[in-house]
């Protein structure tokens, strides 16, 4: 049952637009009109909207739950599913307190509405930064508990008994002394007439039935039989397909176009010209691609026509000498450096990276007389609506976003450039248009993880332990572009997050220099965000310090952590499980790295083999995690496993470069992905904890690259301070 709704909620082709989005709109406006605040501030549940009016008095206590007379319970999930299991974990939070079983519920994507579905940690409707469980842990349980409490009150009133003698269970209220039962559906009418309680008591965690237990993913069955509907799978009556080519030189423009040959191709309907791109509209993607290839197009590369990666690095090197903004200061670094027995300095660098989600960028748009419909998988539904509104000039309420499952996000779908582009194209046609990027377009017109050029230095005492730590981060600011109010006094808090690691250094100075690439080369979020960058720099450098002090890398780190702390516990557990002190054959090495971020402590040991030709194989990864209280433990393990593969791919292969203003890489032959024959075995150990839940999508990715380079050092004695791993450097001489 649930599965039908998984795609149906996203307006399936069998359920053409008019009715379905009418009801969506009505539901929304009613909710907004009644609501005052972010979450459960709807004070009086209302009859909701025209379409639902047929069902009359649907009980909708707030934004997340709807119960109709038939007893159908619908959970409206604020966060989008892109593989991280959030549909299941968000549903578990509500269902736990609502006292329904997961098999009894339908799931719907939330429509765009910052007020109702805003992420409490980030302030608007966004799925990212490993925030979902952390942000909604309390509000969704409270939503479930509030609804349950009202349903119990409705039953007690019906029976004229005390609420204390009633209990909710599996979608029913039971009167304990008489064993009488009423279903939630039969109570929905009465529940709508009751006042919403201000304060409900949430369950004691020891009474959890769902939370903390491994629950099967709700989205899995349709993902093994082809039924799951991603944005790219949308089918709208009368729809045509567009293939698009943006100017291959970043920031360049369309100069001249001769489309006569393209128009002659069977199935091609129309050629759309934009300032910086062309699109071919056809019956199907193949005709559209052939049309693109047949275009005689001249581009104007503009000022970036000769820009290369070397220029980018030179600019960053120069920027590293400019005055910096202080991010973190403790003690007196200058004095400590002077008094140090020795100082060590290093430059660490990380390349531009593309996301390469398996579902290429795509978006379907219909601009029509009533407004604009957009079908896509997006991590930011309200931004999708805003850009469609801005491009078309339509008011927000005339733009409808139909969100879908995401075939991978990894930060790429936190930006709406693909939606903007699709709406621009849709404005020039009078039918629904699905714009699909080729893989080459997807890789060459991504919004890239910034290139970082960081300088680190440490002062060591006579024992080799650090008494001073400095870390200058140099790179572009994602926050300044993506969330300007969060870019305060020239400081990008994401760029410097974790720049001193989880360690107790007596004297610290972390600072930041913002250096933007030329316009046209845009930087954005990438799995693991700021921590992925800083964990590589910090954990590589601390390993250098341990080596300089001739100390074991695990022991060295342990001394810098509080005894008995959660950080110390993950370090000790991973060392034990990995067999840290056991010898490895020649050519192999073990490396450690750890991280605290997103509310989660993680430590990883990588075992690598380095062949004589320098080829690196990551054979085994052991990971210890303390992410606080868990919602769905198997999903946590899956996220760590996947995060490790994602980070390993980047460590071994990931690099976007520019030549003559163009991105050099184009498809999976030149932008290589880790494959199953290269995949390490992975062992994940969770530490039981009753601390607040931490995030889990990013940490696995953030900690693996430094563990790999540290393992390479252990195997070869060669210290890599730059990714991806250069096998040339590792060749046996």
């Amino acid at each position, binding site marked *: 049952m649930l599965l039908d709704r998984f795609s149906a909620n996203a307006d399936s082709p069998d359920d053409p637009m008019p009715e379905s989005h009418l009801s969506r709109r009505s539901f929304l406006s009613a909710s907004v009109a009644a609501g005052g605040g972010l979450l459960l501030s709807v004070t009086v549940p209302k009859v909701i909207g025209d379409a639902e009016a047929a069902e009359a008095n649907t009980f909708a206590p707030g934004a997340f739950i709807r119960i109709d007379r038939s007893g159908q319970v619908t959970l409206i999930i604020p966060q989008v599913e892109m593989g991280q299991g959030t549909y299941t974990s968000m549903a578990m939070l509500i269902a736990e307190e609502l006292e329904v079983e997961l098999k009894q519920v339908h799931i719907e994507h939330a429509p765009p509405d910052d007020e109702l579905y805003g992420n409490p940690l980030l302030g608007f409707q966004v799925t990212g930064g490993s925030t979902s469980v952390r942000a909604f842990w309390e509000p969704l349980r409270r939503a479930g508990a509030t609804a349950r409490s009202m349903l119990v009150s409705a039953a007690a009133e019906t029976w004229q008994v005390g609420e204390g003698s009633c209990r909710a269970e599996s979608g029913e209220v039971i009167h304990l002394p008489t064993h009488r039962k009423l279903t939630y559906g039969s109570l929905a009418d009465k529940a709508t007439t009751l006042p919403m309680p201000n304060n409900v008591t949430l369950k004691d965690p020891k009474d959890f039935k769902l939370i903390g237990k491994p629950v099967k993913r709700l989205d*899995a*069955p349709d993902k*093994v039989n082809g039924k799951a509907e991603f944005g790219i799978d949308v089918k709208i009556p009368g729809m045509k397909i567009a293939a698009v080519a943006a100017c291959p030189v970043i920031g360049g423009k369309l100069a001249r176009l001769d489309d006569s040959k393209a128009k002659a191709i069977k199935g091609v309907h129309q050629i759309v010209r934009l300032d910086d791109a062309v699109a071919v509209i056809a019956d*199907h993607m193949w005709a559209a691609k052939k049309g693109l290839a047949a275009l005689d197009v001249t581009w104007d590369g503009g000022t970036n026509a000769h820009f290369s990666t070397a220029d980018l690095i030179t600019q960053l090197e120069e920027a590293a000498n400019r005055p910096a903004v202080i991010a973190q200061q403790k003690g007196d670094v200058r004095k400590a450096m002077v008094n140090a027995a020795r100082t060590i300095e290093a430059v660490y660098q990380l390349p531009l990276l593309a996301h390469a989600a398996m579902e290429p960028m795509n978006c379907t748009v219909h601009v029509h007389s009533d407004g604009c419909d957009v079908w896509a998988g997006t991590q930011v539904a309200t931004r999708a609506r805003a850009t469609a509104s801005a491009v078309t000039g339509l008011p927000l309420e005339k733009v409808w976003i139909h969100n879908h499952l995401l075939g*991978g996000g990894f930060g790429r779908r936190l930006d709406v450039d693909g939606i903007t582009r699709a709406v621009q194209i849709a404005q020039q046609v009078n039918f629904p248009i699905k714009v699909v990027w080729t*893989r080459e377009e997807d890789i060459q017109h991504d919004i890239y993880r910034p290139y970082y050029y960081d300088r680190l230095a440490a002062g060591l005492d006579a024992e080799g332990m650090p008494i001073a730590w400095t870390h200058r981060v140099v790179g572009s600011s994602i926050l300044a572009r993506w969330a300007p109010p969060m870019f305060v006094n020239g400081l990008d808090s994401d760029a410097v997050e974790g720049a001193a690691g989880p360690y107790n250094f007596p004297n610290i100075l972390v600072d930041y220099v913002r250096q933007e690439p030329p316009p046209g080369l845009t930087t954005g979020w990438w799995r693991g965000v700021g921590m992925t960058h800083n964990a590589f720099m910090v954990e590589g450098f601390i390993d250098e310090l341990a080596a300089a002090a001739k100390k074991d890398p695990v022991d060295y780190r342990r001394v810098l952590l509080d005894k008995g702390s959660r950080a110390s516990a993950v370090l000790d557990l991973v060392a034990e499980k990995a067999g840290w002190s056991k010898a490895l054959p020649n050519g192999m090495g073990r490396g450690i790295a750890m991280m605290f971020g997103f509310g989660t402590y993680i430590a990883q040991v990588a075992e690598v083999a380095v062949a004589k030709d320098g080829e690196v194989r990551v054979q085994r990864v052991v990971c210890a995690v303390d992410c606080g209280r868990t919602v769905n433990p198997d999903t946590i393990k899956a996220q760590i*496993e996947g995060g490790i593969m994602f980070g390993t791919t980047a460590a071994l292969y990931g690099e976007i470069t520019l030549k003559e203003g163009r991105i050099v890489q184009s498809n999976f032959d030149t932008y290589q992905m880790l*494959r199953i024959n290269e*995949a390490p075995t992975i062992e994940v150990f969770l530490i039981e904890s009753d601390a607040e839940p931490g995030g889990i999508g990013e940490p696995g990715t953030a900690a693996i690259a430094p563990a790999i380079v540290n393992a390479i050092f252990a195997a070869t004695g060669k210290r890599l301070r730059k990714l991806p791993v250069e096998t040339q450097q590792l060749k046996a001489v």
Partner: protein
Amino acid sequence: MTYKIKVNGMDRTVDVDADTPLLWVLRDVLGMTGTKFGCGMALCGACTVHLDRSPVRSCVTPIENVGTSAIITIEAIGDTPAGKRIQKAWLDREVVQCGYCQSGQVMSASALLVSNPHPSDSEIDDAMSGNICRCGTYVRIREAIKQAAQSGDNE
């Protein structure tokens, strides 16, 4: 040009150029979107379908080469014994994450079990190395294929 093809046991007629890849015939002409587009160059395996029980990358298989071969796609793989076992193992082992590549993974794995009911680890790696999973579900894919192979013995 008109082509008659046989998809999941049904005769279908399509009117497209001879060089049109089967992928786009399935997705855009026949509306069968379970088969996924990932790269267009046979580099990622997301578009894998079976032609006469053998796995092929539909993104580089022109319609003119398909002829009368029996095409099986993800929508019907559950009707085959190997496909059914693979789907069950995928769910038992909770393989999927975003799920976008999994149509292709399931098709490659099902074909493997047909041609080799008891693949070794390296045979699994060989057969599956053409299928990229960006979510990194490889550890579980290995386990699930082993489970499906074992469950075949008990039937």
